[in-house]
């Protein structure tokens, strides 16, 4: 079945340099540097990436960072907590606008 997302396309990610070599290579160099051990461990970065993958709803990133989180020694509980962090921030981002709605409501009300 043809779909917009094909899991096989994840392996072709590196080929984006085919259409724009310089920027693509710069991106991958930067990407590699970001995920190295630094002030944050690789494991912490994998969990952040997993949470962000869910927030931006990127199926490729979800596959990639589920596997990466497992290879960094995370278990299912830790990974689901990371997803809840994403959900809490996304939900909060909607709900906090409720204050704006309340302000406007009050402005327009007697």
């Amino acid at each position, binding site marked *: 079945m043809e779909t917009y997302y094909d899991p096989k396309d994840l392996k072709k990610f590196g080929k984006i340099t085919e259409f724009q070599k310089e920027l693509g290579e710069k991106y991958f160099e930067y990407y590699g540097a970001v995920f190295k051990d630094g002030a944050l*461990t*690789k*494991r912490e970065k994998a969990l952040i990436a997993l949470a962000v993958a869910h927030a931006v709803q990127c199926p490729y990133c979800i596959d990639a960072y589920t*596997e990466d989180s*497992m*290879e*960094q*020694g995370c*278990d*299912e*509980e830790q990974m689901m907590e990371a997803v809840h962090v994403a959900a809490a921030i996304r939900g909060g981002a909607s709900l906090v606008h409720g204050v704006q709605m309340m302000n406007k409501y009050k402005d327009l009300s007697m």
Partner: protein
Amino acid sequence: MSEVKSHISLKAQGNNFSEPDYQLELLHNAGLTPFRENLERSGLQSFATTGLDVFQVNVGKMCNQVCKHCHVDAGPDRKEIMTKETMLQVLNAISKSTCKTVDLTGGAPEMNPDFRWFVESLSILGCKIMVRSNLTILLANPKYHDLPEFFAKHKVEVISSLPYYSAGKTDAQRGEGVFGKSIEALKMLNEVGYGQENSGLTINLVYNPSGAFLPPDQNALERDFKDRLSRQYGIVFNNLFAITNLPISRYLSYLVASDNYNAYMEKLVNAFNPVAASNAMCRSMISVSWDGFLYDCDFNQMLDLKIASAKQHISDFDPTEFSGRNIIVSQHCYGCTAGAGSSCGGTTA
């Protein structure tokens, strides 16, 4: 493919994955770069032993557990057990060799009826003894309850699998209730001094992935394990070895059944690390099977790939004959050379 039953060995089920030829054929027909070719590209045209540091002796395939990833296909129904006669041949070989480090594995080595006699004999020879204990055996029967004291008496280094510091992942791989019993056994070992500072008694844990993925960084994981086991259970241990699952026997069967085989093999091949290959454990060990035959490692033993020598039995052991011998390699060897490398002592690169 026939349904895999979790409580009996593949061999007892008559499953194809218990057959070395079937496994080797599957591995060879996966369309991957031959392992030998990758060695050659890395300047390791001659892949031979560099010395002999360890006699790894598999004293039998009998085990009280039936772990899903077990490369030995061990279990309660396996009756292959090393006899005292073969043990005497091993002792004779060790006495002729300068190598005095012995790594006892199985199955559950403690289930061999002559296990204690063998350890005592090795101890008299002045050997450094390692035992790969599955932990739960210490609680399996009252006759095993004093094993921690026995190990301590002979300064045995205990090496035990614990795939995670929580029950879910551990039990998924090693069987229901294994985590809880492993924690109890670790407490018993700690109580007699294992893992305690300045006790001279070493307990090392082994992590291996509970699924179709590669192990994490060994040092980072060791920190997590130490922190969690100490905080939650008051358990201490010395080192954590992160080991990659090799695509043979039950783990190979799992990979195929779960449709992870091609991706996992591709991952291993892409992660080939020449440094890990150069430091592979097979370059400085010899593996002895329950019936006394010789192999370059325990994995080759399970695939029945005997050493490249006219003398393939421990009764023929001659130290000069065995140094510099060519190592038998095949596609499963990618498991020891991926990423940071993998050996019975953890990472190699």
